[in-house]
């Protein structure tokens, strides 16, 4: 640290450009949104103050709970799988295969495509009658699967799509962590007779734990905010069984014109994400330090 009694002044000066934009386009609308949640407002007529009524309704709203549950389902389905697959991919690309560069590029490539492209592509792949998956299954004599039209499979299909789309990102993060581990550690383990998987379990995994935690936190935040790919692929169906909370927030505000209620819903989501992120950081972060 540069010693100096001008730290506070400098600190603030350096922060001002960002903070100005942040205050204008993030903080102000955020609080404005909170303000709106205490009103009944259909965006076109004058808002009417109703205090905490929106929040009261929220806690008795069955659709709120079902949407929240669907979001949680998505989080539970994608978080562990994305971490594990990302890690396994990272192992593959830091190993000794001559194909590792090809693998790195292939697995990462989907990440650069936009949500709309990925979702429409996979909705097409999984289309019940003419999609590639079912056409192939029919060809080999297997009954076609209703990937997106059967509630048992719909959310899993969306999770699969997300897996293809974003596991490359985790792969890169883990790959970097793995590359940090000095070769000598593996060599001495190998001399002691450890197998590959034992090395992975006892050396690799513990030593990339900080990366794991980072991935976990980012992953969970992103998964709680999921909306686009679900909306495009299933529209929240079949019969509302994949409707996630953000879709409900969107519909309440922009289809049913209940702006105040929509704002209240989004604040509750925000709080949930906040609490979980803080918990994660506190619990896992502390374990890290010890």
């Amino acid at each position, binding site marked *: *640290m540069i010693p100096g009694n001008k730290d506070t002044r400098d600190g603030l000066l350096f922060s001002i450009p960002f903070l100005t934009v942040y205050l204008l386009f993030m903080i102000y609308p955020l609080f*404005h949104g909170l303000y709106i949640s205490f009103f009944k407002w259909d965006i076109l007529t004058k808002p009417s103050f109703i205090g905490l009524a929106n929040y009261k309704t929220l806690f008795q709203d069955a659709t709120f709970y079902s949407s929240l549950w669907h979001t949680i389902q998505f989080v539970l389905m994608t978080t562990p799988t994305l971490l594990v697959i990302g890690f396994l991919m990272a192992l593959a690309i830091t190993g000794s295969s001559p194909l590792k560069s090809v693998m790195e590029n*292939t697995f990462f490539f989907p990440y650069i495509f936009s949500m*709309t492209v990925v979702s429409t592509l996979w909705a097409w792949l999984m289309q019940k009658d003419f999609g590639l998956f079912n056409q192939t299954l029919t060809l080999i004599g297997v009954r076609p699967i209703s990937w997106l039209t059967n509630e048992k499979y719909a959310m899993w299909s969306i999770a699969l799509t997300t897996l293809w789309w974003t596991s490359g990102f985790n792969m890169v993060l*883990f790959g970097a962590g793995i590359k940090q581990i000095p070769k000598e550690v593996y060599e001495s383990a190998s001399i002691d007779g450890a197998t590959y998987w034992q090395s992975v379990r006892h050396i690799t995994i513990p030593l990339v734990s900080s990366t794991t935690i980072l991935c976990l936190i980012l992953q969970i935040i992103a998964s709680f905010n999921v909306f686009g790919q679900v909306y495009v692929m299933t529209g929240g169906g079949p019969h509302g069984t994949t409707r996630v909370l953000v879709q409900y927030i969107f519909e309440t505000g922009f289809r049913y014109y209940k702006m105040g209620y929509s704002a209240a819903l989004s604040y509750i989501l925000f709080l949930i994400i906040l609490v979980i992120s803080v918990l994660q950081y506190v619990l896992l972060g502390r374990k890290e330090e010890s």
Partner: protein
Amino acid sequence: MKAQSTSKKILFRIIELLFIFAWMLPLIWMAITSLKLEHEVITKTFTFLPKHPTLANYTKAFTSTYILRWLYNSVIVSTLAMVFTLVLDAPIAYAFAKIDFKGRNVLFWAVMGGMMVPFQVLIVPLYLQFNTYGLVNSLAAVYLPRLALPIGIFILKQFYEGIPGELEEAAFIDGAHRFRIFLRIILPLGQSAMATVIILSFINTWNDFLWPLIVVNDTIKYPITVGIANFQGTHGTQYSLIMAGALVASVPQIIFYIFFRKKIIAGIATSGIKG
């Protein structure tokens, strides 16, 4: 690691090749579909490759829409966003990393908290705000809300913390003041981290959909995500057209990736290490 037998090696290579193929298959399929005519797509006689490959879908995409203009809009908007995000993020990241000022921690967490906000909350207030400023239907409106990128600050801060303090102290002793140190020493050192930030910002802004949809009125001013969704909306289930459109919409990103591949991956990797 113990040496592997040849047959095991071959087995592994085969598995790897299968995975590589499986991973690329969706994209290959997207390209193949785009070359088919509709009746080869919705048909009972399934063929993998098109019997009569055609560029008609691409012709339609280019002639019936403003697709080139949309791509141009996206390029402008995303480029400006990535440059200005860096201008905003780097100084404050440096402050968090290297300047011990009062309230630093609280401010840091307040800034990071921004990452958790679901965008839906902000849409209506932002729209009303932009309307007051008279900025609705301008290209600026598309990227201004995206300029403040907390994850960028996080990445840069991680990197800056790794720069040894001695470098700064030496420069300080030589009489340089903070801003000069920041400009001349810190910034040049942080190139890979900065590359990550601008890439993330570019991708983020490029993929934005709901906000530009609401704030841009004229079809010709749409960025590509909205424009292409329009195109898809127009053509319902004409999958071959939709795939062609999707592919065209992704070309700039593909080019971007091919050229900056190493930097992108290196950048993400670097940020992850310190995390």
